[in-house]
């Protein structure tokens, strides 16, 4: 896995150029200029947009400002999804920069989770890490870590510190030599067209005959309707599913 460090770095440092524009109905004291930012794919909107918030609040009155939320072409953006996932789901076919609209009023209670502090993001992130480890190691690795190790994972993400993050995350990516892989692969399949937010099932990395499962095997098993005959080339890409799971640098789903 250390040979794949380049891939890990590429995933970690992936960026999406984004243009933030204030929603036209927000009440301002002067004109609000758009704000441009390179967003990290592996992070969360509310974690990396403090500057965006400050920029727009400068032209607004205090009483007009409540919880910030983001929207793309009328769809509220779920801050608890990684930014890269949001982009791939909603805007991957459009030209860059990605245009996101910023709101400070009328928070959509039925669509979005609240995010009143960084604690909320940390709790969500750690819950994802823990659930992934429940699948990979029956929670043994995550539970054996000290609280300061958990904190280091979070701080690594928050401060964009690759080495700091991976010093701890590599333990979550290992398995004992006698095993041939994780117990189950943590994955979620997101489709923009369904009401159901994602598909998640138990899936082993090794088939009963001992051969490694591929990404194509997983897709066929989990959502056969998504794989049409034209798309069968994907199942012939013999991507070792263990590799895919190991290189997902925020240890989770996409």
């Amino acid at each position, binding site marked *: 896995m250390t040979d794949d460090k380049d891939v890990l770095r590429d995933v970690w440092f992936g960026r999406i150029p984004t243009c933030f524009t204030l929603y036209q109905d927000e009440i301002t004291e002067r004109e609000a200029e758009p704000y441009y930012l390179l967003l990290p794919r592996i992070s969360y909107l509310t974690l990396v947009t403090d500057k965006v918030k400050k920029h727009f609040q400068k032209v607004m009155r205090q009483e007009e400002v409540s919880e910030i939320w983001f929207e793309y072409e009328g769809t509220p953006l*779920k801050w*608890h999804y990684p930014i890269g996932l949001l982009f791939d789901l909603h805007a991957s076919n459009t030209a860059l920069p990605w245009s996101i609209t910023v709101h400070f009023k009328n928070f959509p*209670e*039925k*669509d*979005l*989770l*609240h995010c*009143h502090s960084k*604690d*909320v993001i*940390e*709790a*969500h992130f750690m*819950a994802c890490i*823990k*659930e992934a480890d*429940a*699948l990979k190691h*029956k*929670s043994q690795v*995550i*539970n*054996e*870590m*000290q*609280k300061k190790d*958990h904190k280091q994972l979070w701080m690594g993400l928050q401060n964009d510190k690759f080495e700091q993050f991976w010093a701890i995350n590599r333990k979550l990516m290992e398995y004992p030599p006698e095993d041939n892989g994780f117990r189950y692969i*943590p994955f979620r399949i997101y489709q923009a067209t*369904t*009401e*159901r*937010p*994602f*598909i*998640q*099932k*138990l899936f082993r990395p090794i088939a009963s005959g001992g051969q490694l499962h591929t990404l194509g095997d997983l897709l066929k098993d989990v959502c056969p309707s998504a794989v049409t005959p034209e798309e069968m080339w994907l199942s012939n890409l013999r991507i070792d599913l263990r590799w895919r799971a190991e290189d997902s640098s925020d240890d989770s789903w996409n």
Partner: protein
Amino acid sequence: MLEGTSGDHPVQPQPRQGHLEQMTQGRVQIPSSMAGEEDFFLEEKRFKQHCEEFVKHSQQIGDGWEWRTNKDLGDGYLSKTHFQVRNRHIAQDLREKTSDNIEETLLAHVEESLDDSQVAGVCTTEEVIRYEYHVLYSSSYQVPVLYFRACFLDGRPLTLEEIWGSVHACYQDRLQEGPWDTITQQEHPILGQPFFVLHPCRTNEFISTVLTGPWKHNRHKNYIILWLSTVGPVVGLSVPLSYAKVAPEQNSSTDSAESNENLC
């Protein structure tokens, strides 16, 4: 009469504290002798069976639970909606107090014991809150998980702080130890909408205090009834005593197949 607070459900035992705290000073390790995951895991098929029994009994006693199936993947969840009346104490200027108000305050049925604010002249209003509870299966933790949402009659949803505040008094200490690990807002995995969830990793702690041995020795009981009657009251959901009468059907061939699964 306030639901969820008085005697129609069993008194909950206090969760074991000292042993676990000693072993986990500064660490989050749960000693392997107490590691809950394998001992208390529930297979999805059995989850569905127990839910079916649960709904059947609920229909008999009019307890309001129903099973909802997701048409895409065929999985589903238990669902129940009920209304709870909650007393809210609003401090009032003493000068505004009329004798009528004072009488109302004295006669209002309150959960908590009287404190200074109430003696000083506090107006009590009753608020109706609509609770919706869902029981889903977590394949990651292999346990049921309790999701819920709550709003006032005007549609305003309760905040996380309000939810934490409404956790039953018996469980407040536990909650304060780690609120972010206990109840948070999450996306409902089937509906995709914001719900509050009682974290499953803590479920095993609650369950282990109720069962006297690993789950495999308790297979004759209905897991949903045991689990829900333990964790439900934490968030205002009571399970009437009559559920204790429910006995799952014995199926010896299923049992032996499952004991082989346990080994993997």
